[in-house]
């Protein structure tokens, strides 16, 4: 390696190559506050077909299910001949581009499908198969060990000087005296530039690669560790203490030191077209469309053709839930209990805040990652409750100190073995007890767990002026379509998941709250909406909230389905009976939903009851505490009257929207540019984790090793695993989650949707890029139109009635095997 320092121009060129190389995989947000994200997000604008052709293969990954799997779905009836034939016809060249295959469009369904199956190029099973990265080599192993030590120092065997020297500088200091590296290699590392950018430029020049091949070579290097690359991208955006340039500087300097040149690019595979002229990605999309048709038919046939007339009397209580698919189940069961109305809204309730819970060690962003928090709200004990609050804070601090003390010997070389000898007698019986009791012991406590918390309030007035509170309140109510609140009790229900020994617990919490529980946001929103001065301001803006209307905050635990009121201080004592009645109905709703969910949870008994499923969440050996958002398939944006009373099988995000009240389209634009985007990110994370669990998923939980808050490894070393663990998407029998793209059902005038697509790039990217299938009600009741790049087109439902019935009758086992 040359010891001459590269010029600034060469360093900036190398940095640009590194940034371009990394712009193939989305940032990975870690597990402290897990966020679902489309793993190939940088390709969003290029569209899903382009992502499948370029980004996924660049990562050695598969972007769609393989043809063998689709053929198995055809054989077992999950895809019907009619559905596949319809998808083939839709993919055939248009009359303007007529070619020989067009004649096939006139053939019968059976003949068309037979031709499609027989016409697969070469080995159909290998269609669109990715070039997997070779097994980890010495460079990968050394780099990933360093990533673990430098990026998750709490998991490192001993401290490394990253804070002082940076990721690359600290590695250079350590590696230049690392006896496991040959002496000549150590000298080369010592001679390498001290700054990462210069080291990368020097190492790149030493490779002799032409300038126009360097970004591609760096992308191949990063693709060998996509997990750490994605995590470094996130750190670069947030703390900024490390960037991809550092990662590549270490990797290439290591290559130079160990005499291991960058491998040559694999020869590009020839793209073979099938008998219909479709390339592998086009062919995969035919299968994908055929697979999705059943789900679309099943959901759309249940959505009412027109909203029910609002002749119902005012509800006794109105509960506003997060749009999360899990809310659909509890809403449906609760509405069946009595005169309850429910709505769906992004679970952060419009509170773009950094929240500082009373007992947490730091504040954290409690809003979607699309948003930058605009203010901080702190939780304080209510007057007179300081003693209980202090007790909680002391107890949690004591617990943290105790756990820290127990882990202290881990950081001293040789100490863990001796520590195990000394304390093993104590932990053995504890472990045995936890295993035998399996969750029956006292519930664990999280700092943000609302159960048993002392009386507190969120100090909204210190965070927001009255004008800002008023603006926030107006946005919440108008976006929800709640401009004429008609219930005396309105409950904002956040959600969270109570599980133990679960590295992915925050992935089960509220994504709209930044991977946190939703109770704080519900409490802040309720406090604002109960404020007399805010209500007075709302009245001047045309929103009259009756004096007797009270907003309460609650939380839905998605493991037990219990709804806990977390702040009822604003409810007069004489109205406590209304709340008791609501809670009794909520408990019955939870029982009903538990029976429904237990039928799908591996090892759960439908008749087991609520306490049994709650206990599963506390069982430290339970890898299936709940299914999370598995099987998500659609987002429905419209009035609840279109879907009330309909079983959507917890597969749909539900966002309330009143097209009549949103004449200027502002509310719809907000929904399409944020909740739709978040729903797509979640849907894409499940999709990619299912179609390629090896690269885009996290593997089995049973062999995970936690790396601080960064993520997990499979086994002791290796790449950070991104995406969802297998236990979030499947069982031993196969996939539980169905990898379908998000169906976006938007009940709004077509011109209004078109306007938003024209104005908002992100919506155009999702729709034109085939990431989502956006449909709206057609002119005739019961018909649908789909927004294509060219405009609106009829969207007929192709599944026959018999096929739909066949799915209805499918057993949970059959569903799992799907």
């Amino acid at each position: 390696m040359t010891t001459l320092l590269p010029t600034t121009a060469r360093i900036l060129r190398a940095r640009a190559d590194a940034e371009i190389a990394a712009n193939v995989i989305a940032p990975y947000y870690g597990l402290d506050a897990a966020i679902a994200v489309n793993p190939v997000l940088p390709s969003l604008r290029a569209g899903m077909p382009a992502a499948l052709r370029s980004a996924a293969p660049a990562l050695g990954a598969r972007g769609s299910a393989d043809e063998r799997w689709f053929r198995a779905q055809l054989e077992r009836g999950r895809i019907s001949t009619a559905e596949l034939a319809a998808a083939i016809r839709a993919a055939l060249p248009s009359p303007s581009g007529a070619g020989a295959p067009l004649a096939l469009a006139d053939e019968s369904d059976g003949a068309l499908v037979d031709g499609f199956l027989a016409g697969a190029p070469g080995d159909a099973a290998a269609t669109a198969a990715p070039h997997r990265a070779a097994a980890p080599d010495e460079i990968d192993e050394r780099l990933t060990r360093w990533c673990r030590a430098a990026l998750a120092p709490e998991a490192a065997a001993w401290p490394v000087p990253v804070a002082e020297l940076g990721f690359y500088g600290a590695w250079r200091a350590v590696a230049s005296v690392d006896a496991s590296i040959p002496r000549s290699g150590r000298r080369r590392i010592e001679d390498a530039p001290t700054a990462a950018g210069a080291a990368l430029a020097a190492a790149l020049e030493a490779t002799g690669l032409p300038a126009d091949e360097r970004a591609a070579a760096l992308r191949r290097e990063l693709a060998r560790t996509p997990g750490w690359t994605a995590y470094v991208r996130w750190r670069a955006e947030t703390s900024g203490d490390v960037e991809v340039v550092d990662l590549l500087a270490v990797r290439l300097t290591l290559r130079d030191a160990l005499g291991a040149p960058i491998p040559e690019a694999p020869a590009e595979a020839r793209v073979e077209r099938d008998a219909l002229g479709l390339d592998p990605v086009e062919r995969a999309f035919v299968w994908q469309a055929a697979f999705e048709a059943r789900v679309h038919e099943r959901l759309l046939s249940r959505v009412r053709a027109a909203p029910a007339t609002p002749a119902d009397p005012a509800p006794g209580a109105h509960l506003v839930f997060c749009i999360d698919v899990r809310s659909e189940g509890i809403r449906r069961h609760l509405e069946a209990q009595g005169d309850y109305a429910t709505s769906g809204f992004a679970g952060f309730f419009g509170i773009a805040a950094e929240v500082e819970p009373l007992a947490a060690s730091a504040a954290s962003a409690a809003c979607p990652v699309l948003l930058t928090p605009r203010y901080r709200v702190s939780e304080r004990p209510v007057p007179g409750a300081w003693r209980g609050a202090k007790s909680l804070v002391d107890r949690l601090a004591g617990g943290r100190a105790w756990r820290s003390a127990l882990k202290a010997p881990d950081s001293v070389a040789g100490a863990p073995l001796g520590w195990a000898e000394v304390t093993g007698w104590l932990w053995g019986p504890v472990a045995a007890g936890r295993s035998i009791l399996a969750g029956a012991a006292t519930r664990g406590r999280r700092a943000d767990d609302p159960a048993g918390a002392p009386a507190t309030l969120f100090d909204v007035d210190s965070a927001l002026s009255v004008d800002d509170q008023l603006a926030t309140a107006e946005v919440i109510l108008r976006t929800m379509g709640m401009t004429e609140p008609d219930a005396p009790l309105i409950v904002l229900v956040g959600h969270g998941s109570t599980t133990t020994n679960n590295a992915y617990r925050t992935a089960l919490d509220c994504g709209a709250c930044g991977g946190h529980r939703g109770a704080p946001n519900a409490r802040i929103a309720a406090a604002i909406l109960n404020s007399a001065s805010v209500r007075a301001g709302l009245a001047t803006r045309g929103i009259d909230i009756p004096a007797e209307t009270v907003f309460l905050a609650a939380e839905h635990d998605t493991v037990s389905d219990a709804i806990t009121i977390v702040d009822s201080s604003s409810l007069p004592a004489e109205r406590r009976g209304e709340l008791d009645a609501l809670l009794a109905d909520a408990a019955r709703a939870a029982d009903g939903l538990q029976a429904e969910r237990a039928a799908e949870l591996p090892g759960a008994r439908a008749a087991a009851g609520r306490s049994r499923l709650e206990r599963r969440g506390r069982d430290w050996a339970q890898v299936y505490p709940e299914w999370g958002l598995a099987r998500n398939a659609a987002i429905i944006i419209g009035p609840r009257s279109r879907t009330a009373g309909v079983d959507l099988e917890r597969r749909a995000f539900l966002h309330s929207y009143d097209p009549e009240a949103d004449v200027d389209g502002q509310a719809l634009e907000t929904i399409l540019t944020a909740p739709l985007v978040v729903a797509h990110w979640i849907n894409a994370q499940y999709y990619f984790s299912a179609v390629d669990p090896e690269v885009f998923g996290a593997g089995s939980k049973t062999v995970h090793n936690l790396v601080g808050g960064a993520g997990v490894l499979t086994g002791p070393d290796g790449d950070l695993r991104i995406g969802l663990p297998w236990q979030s998407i499947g069982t031993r029998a196969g996939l539980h989650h169905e990898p379908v793209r998000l169906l976006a059902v938007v009940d709004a005038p077509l011109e209004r949707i078109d306007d938003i697509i024209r104005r908002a790039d992100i919506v155009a990217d999702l729709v034109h890029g085939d990431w989502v299938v956006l449909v709206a009600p057609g002119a005739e009741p019961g018909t649908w139109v789909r927004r294509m790049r060219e405009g609106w087109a009829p969207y007929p439902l192709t599944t026959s009635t018999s096929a739909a019935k066949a799915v209805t009758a499918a057993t949970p086992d059959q569903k799992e095997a799907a």
Partner: protein
Amino acid sequence: MSREALTRMTKIEVVARTADSDAVRRQIVASGASGYTSLPAVTGLGHHGAHEGRALFNDRDALTLTITVVPDDRADDLIEGLRSLLERSTGVMFVSDTYVSRPHYFS
């Protein structure tokens, strides 16, 4: 004040998607520039049509304008570094002469 009393420098402005603007800023810092100004959620009409500003609940999917001023002798390296970065994205760059009253702020 006339321009003769000011110091001539080079102003570089980049309009890019907010998600890509982090890389632009890192490139500016790596070039030795003493600072930058970032304007989130800019609006306008361009090659890709009209662009809205920030959506109510989405700061990320908007355009950001990043501005830096550097001495002329550093400008070419940075311009080339930014061009390399923007080769594969939709961002645009404007380069112009500018005059500053406090040159030591930008050196």
